[in-house]
């Protein structure tokens, strides 16, 4: 995975696709000034000629092209980062953070900055972190967090720590070699920025809905238009290889039996049917029970014989 470095001393951290794209769009609107703008520019500078302006424009476009390309590289980075992380387990991810720290880089994979070094006194293993005013218990004072220094030195900033840990919780604990094909595909890693944006969009949508419901008059202007990002998200969810369909396809090809798809052993869960419909009856007092009877349901052999004997006797008496 490559991180862009060296283009400027402190390159801007553009971590998500939308922000990168937005910045490109914003810049490209300045790329082609109209004739009026050009004339105005020349009038303001008496020494400048049209040729100067031409050269300046050419350079500007070159820089623009460079920026566009860099933006695209970043897009590639983000995509690459996400697809590469699908195979990671949280432990592997921690290793990656450690390796990056050894190289003096922030632990977050897409951050080109250096990690923090020696916050506070040297040699101390813990560091006090004070929250904002009024964040303490009962809304008074400041909240104090005691953080191990090594945890602080993993990242360049708290924001990056949040971003990195946000990704960590999305990773699967199951090792790659035990996952089935469609399981790896199902792991969709989302950057913190993307998730925030999505949530905001959902909120807006809800608001719009509420407004629509509140407004009794039908206003055609408030029709929610699906944005470009919505469409891309929809496309992403449209899976070509759905679990069920891929199973069907495999059967059609005769790849493997359906029973072996789920693992080596074919496990079929079968619910046990209740054998009798009648409700269980309460136990009734047996013949020898007043003398002690059964011991937790167990009737000693002697007693049993006795009781059966008495039963027999009684039978004979009746007959007589």
């Amino acid at each position, binding site marked *: 995975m490559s991180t862009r470095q060296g283009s400027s001393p402190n390159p801007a951290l553009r971590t998500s696709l939308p922000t990168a794209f937005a910045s490109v769009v914003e810049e490209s609107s300045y790329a082609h000034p109209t004739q009026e703008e050009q004339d105005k520019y020349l009038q303001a500078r008496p020494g400048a000629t049209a040729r100067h302006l031409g050269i300046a424009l050419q350079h500007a476009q070159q820089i623009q092209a460079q920026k566009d390309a860099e933006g695209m590289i970043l897009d590639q980075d983000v995509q690459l980062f996400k697809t590469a992380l699908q195979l990671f387990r949280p432990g592997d991810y921690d*290793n*990656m953070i*450690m*390796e990056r*720290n*050894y*190289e003096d880089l922030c632990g977050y994979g897409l951050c080109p900055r250096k990690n923090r070094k020696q916050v506070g006194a040297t040699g101390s293993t813990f560091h006090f972190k004070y929250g904002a005013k009024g964040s303490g218990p009962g809304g008074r004072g400041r909240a104090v967090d005691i953080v191990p220094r090594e945890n602080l030195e993993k990242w360049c900033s708290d924001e990056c720590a949040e971003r990195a840990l946000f990704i960590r919780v999305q990773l699967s604990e199951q090792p790659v070699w035990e996952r089935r094909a469609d399981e790896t595909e199902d792991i969709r890693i989302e950057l913190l920025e993307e998730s925030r944006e999505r949530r905001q969009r959902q909120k807006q949508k809800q608001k719009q809905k509420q407004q629509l419901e509140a407004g009794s008059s039908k206003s055609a202007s408030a029709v929610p238009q699906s944005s470009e990002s919505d469409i891309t998200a929809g496309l992403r969810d449209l899976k070509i290889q759905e679990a069920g369909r891929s199973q069907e396809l495999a059967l059609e090809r005769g790849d493997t039996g359906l029973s072996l798809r789920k693992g080596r052993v074919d496990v079929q869960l079968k619910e046990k049917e209740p054998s009798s419909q009648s409700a269980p009856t309460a136990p009734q007092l047996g013949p020898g029970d007043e003398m002690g009877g059964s011991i937790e349901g167990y009737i000693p052999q002697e007693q049993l014989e006795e009781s059966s004997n008495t039963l027999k006797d009684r039978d004979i008496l009746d007959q007589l």
Partner: protein
Amino acid sequence: MDGDVSAHSQEAEKETTRLWRTFRTVYEMLADRGYEVSDDELAISLDEFRQKYSDPMGYPDRNKMKIQARPTKIMEMKYTLKTKSNPNPTPDCGTVYVDFCPDASGVGTKQVRAFNHIVGESNYHTGIFITQTPISPSAVRLLSSLPNHICEHFQEQDLLVNITRHELVPKHVLLSPEEKARLLERYRLKESQLPRMQVSDPVSRYLGLRRGQVVKIIRKSETAGRYASYRWVI
């Protein structure tokens, strides 16, 4: 200012002494494994070490401390497996290369990659990588990933003392393939029926043992004088 300098020199002296002990253990280890090591190298004194390997500040210069050694005839014999189909085999051992990593902390894949490169480039059979701090898990994995070469890792503090010289550690002797075959025949055993010993065992690491080898352990015994037992390395 004066105190500062003396504190510095004290620090340097301490580090030099520690490293000297590690360095001597490394030579002893190589000799015990059966590499060619001269007596001068084995008995290097602290002064000599300081003269040879310290920088102008008095600190030891780890970049200078690279060791190479060739196996002796005895060692080659122990590592050659003669079979009917292969009557003239080449020994499974060769030149060893020892590298001391100069980085004081944070040894990761970068340094290990450089070490692997040296080992692969110069075609050393075995490489021993010695660092001051533990190396990262991915670096460990990378170290063992070099095909046809054996790369080992030690920490400096592990080699501060030669563990095999301790009175409670019995003598371990590696058996050659023929000796192993004879032993198994003598006792009518399969090798899996021998007692076992892990590759990660400190003595096993010290001797650079490999999976499947058998060592003879000679202990002192009050009743029998000497008592030999065997371990299969797994």
